[in-house]
């Protein structure tokens, strides 16, 4: 049994919030450069150049890549041999978020309730925290700030097995087609297949943690991902929806077993500001 004081997690979460918002992953930069080479529209090429310039400036000026510094989504892989001491784990994560969003000059985008009051909580809490119990005595914490523009273009659909893989592909492509320029293309498309209603959505979100340079380890899904990506890029939406051949940089699928009567499909849309940083304690 390894003891970890929850208070030690506060500065770690704080730094993850700031780093995730200031520094884009190398995978996004290299993919955008790769697509820029193939892009046919001059307007689109110009937008991609501005995005590359923006990542560089964010790093240099120590400012967030995007003003929408998102909901702080926190994935925790908790080793089952860890014993947490020193206080409330959830509160420690929230305190890290609070400090990160304040000291990193990140935007506070959370409101107290969804409809009636909508009063800004002023410190970007609460974070949305998912915990998985895993073997071992370590904790892996990932902070993935998620902006509203792309999140709003996401959808869960309870499909029928009879719809087949063609039906799934059609639904995903149609979802992106209807999103147009809203989610700040170029986007990354997270697809969760199977499980049940809520698990499919979580799979879609978790799929977005993959690097754009990594292929799906299952060749069956890697092929479907490629097919969906090609179809999406044939929509012509282009960067920012202004027209072009670069609409999505990647499609990521995660799947799980499901009930004999069900086939849940979830699409979680991620903008080019695909921010996530992890640390293992």
């Amino acid at each position, binding site marked *: 049994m390894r003891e970890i004081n929850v208070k030690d997690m506060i500065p770690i979460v704080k730094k993850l919030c700031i780093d995730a918002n200031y520094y884009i992953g190398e995978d996004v930069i290299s993919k955008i450069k790769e697509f820029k080479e193939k892009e046919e529209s001059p307007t689109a090429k110009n937008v991609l150049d501005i995005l590359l310039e923006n990542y560089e400036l964010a790093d240099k000026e*120590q400012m967030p890549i995007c003003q929408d510094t998102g909901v702080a989504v926190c994935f925790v892989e908790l080793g089952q041999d860890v014993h947490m001491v020193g206080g409330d784990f959830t509160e420690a994560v929230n305190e890290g978020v609070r400090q990160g969003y304040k000291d990193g000059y990140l935007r506070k985008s959370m409101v107290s309730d969804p409809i009636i009051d909508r009063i800004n909580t002023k410190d970007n809490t609460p974070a949305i925290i998912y915990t998985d119990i895993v073997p071992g005595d370590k904790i892996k914490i990932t902070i993935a700030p998620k902006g509203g523009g792309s999140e709003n273009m996401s959808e869960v659909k309870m499909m029928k097995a009879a719809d087949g893989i063609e039906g799934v592909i059609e639904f995903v492509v149609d979802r992106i087609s209807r999103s147009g320029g809203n989610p700040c293309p170029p986007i990354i498309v997270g697809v969760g297949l199977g499980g049940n209603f809520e698990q499919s959505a979580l799979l879609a979100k978790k799929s977005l943690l993959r690097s754009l340079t990594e292929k799906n380890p299952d060749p069956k899904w890697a092929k479907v991902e490629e097919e969906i990506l090609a179809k999406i890029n044939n929509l012509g939406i282009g960067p920012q929806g202004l027209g*072009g051949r670069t609409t999505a940089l990647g499609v990521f699928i995660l799947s799980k077993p499901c009930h004999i009567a069900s086939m849940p499909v979830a699409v979680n849309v991620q903008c080019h500001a695909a921010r996530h940083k992890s640390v293992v304690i």
Partner: protein
Amino acid sequence: MEVHLTTPLKTADLEKLKIGDQVYITGTVYTGRDAAHKRLVELLEKGEKLPFDAKGQIIYYVGPAPAPPGKPIGSAGPTTSYRMDPYAPALLDVGMKAMIGKGPRDQTVIDSMIKNKAVYLAAVGGAAVVVAKSIKESKVIAYEDLGPEAIREMKVENFPCVVANDVYGNDIYKAGVEEYKR
């Protein structure tokens, strides 16, 4: 085409713009998102005055990040515009001449732009530091309680955007996609 515009905007200048033109704005822009728009339109419905004179002005859909020390503003890219669609025509009717945001507008807004000879300009979503560099001053002029959603008056120099809807009803979100889809 590359066009430099200064505020307040003149109808004659806007009539020359076509979708896809690269525009650089210098002068004043006012900011507002959903919550501020709701309040502005409520004021108009009650027959009251807006907190700023809308004539010839530009409204920028943005909720900036806080200003780090020594900077006039934090990251400040555009937010998605369709959420302002229900409110936009009322503001164009009182003389607002341009909107800056990201993503397509609905037909009622496009019709209102034709009627009022106004334009919609797209800034690059997520290019928030690039935009912030063009903002030289920023002060909250109304609805401080809304935090990032408060209305700000910004002084900008060469604020970069693209004409997405011109005064003739053309729409880059439709035309651009048509051109590049297969």
